[in-house]
């Protein structure tokens, strides 16, 4: 047995390139290489650049989610509210607009039997999240995170209200009040009419 165990160790060195022992090779009943480890995340701070371009400002951000299953929307609401709280976005209001039902009545049979029909309905449930005073970068990041984790069969509609300053070309009038602009007078129209006839 000693000879066989020693030869087993030699064979393991040939196959793996090192001596496979119980402690090193196996961890909790699984080989080390098969255990899932967290991928080491490189610090993202080096990758962030701050540009000179001014950030857009959103006075309000309204996210409306639509789905056929109310339980799915409840879970999604929990996810959205927790994420908003963690990231420090001010979630003003979460409310549930009333569901809408689309009904459809069709004939039950392929041919004749007009009195026998079948009714189908599509129920759409809604959930509305109202955010206020969010910057453009934050909105972009948060919305992308939310949208990537949108469950199957759920649609989203985002209404953004951005606020801006009055641009430079609207701040002062181009024309002075004293100069009156001469435009086409009614006399010209009658001249054109004469030409036509």
């Amino acid at each position, binding site marked *: 047995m000693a000879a066989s165990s020693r030869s087993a160790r030699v064979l393991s060195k040939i196959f793996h390139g090192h001596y496979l022992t119980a402690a090193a090779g196996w961890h909790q009943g699984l080989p080390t290489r098969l255990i899932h480890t967290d991928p080491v995340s490189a610090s993202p701070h080096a990758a962030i650049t701050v540009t000179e371009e001014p950030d857009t400002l959103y006075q309000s951000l309204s996210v409306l989610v639509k789905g056929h299953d109310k339980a799915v929307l409840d879970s999604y609401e929990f996810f959205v509210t927790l994420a908003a709280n963690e990231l420090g976005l001010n979630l003003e209001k979460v409310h549930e607009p009333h569901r809408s039902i689309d009904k459809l009545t069709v004939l039950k049979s392929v041919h004749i039997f007009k009195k026998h029909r079948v009714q189908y309905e599509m129920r759409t449930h809604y959930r509305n999240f109202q955010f206020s005073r969010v*910057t453009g970068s934050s909105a972009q990041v948060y919305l992308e995170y939310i949208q990537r984790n949108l469950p199957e069969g759920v649609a989203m509609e985002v209404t953004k209200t951005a606020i801006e300053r009055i641009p430079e070309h*609207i701040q002062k009038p181009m024309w002075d009040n004293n100069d009156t*602009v001469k435009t086409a007078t009614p006399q010209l129209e009658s001249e054109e009419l004469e030409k036509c006839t």
Partner: protein
Amino acid sequence: MAASIYLPMLEYFMYYLYQAVVPRTVKMAEDQDWTAVYPTAASFKPSAVPLPIRMGYPLKGGVSPDKQGNLELIKIPNFLHLTPAAIKKHCEALKPFLTEWPSALDSDEKCTEHFPIQVQTKDFVSSGASLRNPNARIVTMKVPLSSLNLDDHARKKIIKLAKERYCEETDTLTLVTDSCPLKQQNYDHAMYLLTVLYHESWKMEAWEEDKAREDMEEYEWQDSPSQRNVVELLERTKGTEERKKDLLSQPEVQEYKDAIVIMKNHGETEENLLRYKEAVKKLYNI
């Protein structure tokens, strides 16, 4: 000797057999990292979720079917990849990319004061044959006219040009553009319309000088028949020694003027009529 060569192969075979027969839930520790089990959205795997879940219409015995081979559990979307711990991890990674809202703009009034223009757009996310949604190109631009640099003539002209796009109650001009295929184009178009409206309203056309009393938007008491009547009345009662200016500067005349102007511009209400009655009585010294 032959048996010793096959020993590591037997070990591996036993290991893989063990994997197939015993589910992963048996080997899970209670303090394991759940984000490692469900790092991304995945369908429900009964051998990987250590919960005794039952779902579906009850069987003949009276209980819902077990999780093993249960299609109902696979069909519905699960949030096993979005546990609170996982969400917190994601948020920690996302925090450096967020920016703070400027602390000086803490109320809506301040926002409107410094940033009067409001641009409303919509984005849509849904699954279907096409990614596009035609309503995503619509841009709504709202501007309060009080924030624009307009004089009296320009203000009246811009309201006339805008017609139903101007709301009197909120004093906002609303421009809705959807004629271009892209959102950016529609935004540029809205900004262009605003620029044109602004500059055109400051222009004074030659034919605008022909504006008569009937074209005025509001009732003006100056040089109106009402003013002439009052002047005539006062001249007859008080004599012709006092000038017109002095007659008009009397407080009773001013009160009468206010009552008339309010009645003509805002309509006749009980309050307005009472004021008019009082003003007339004072004029006649009743």
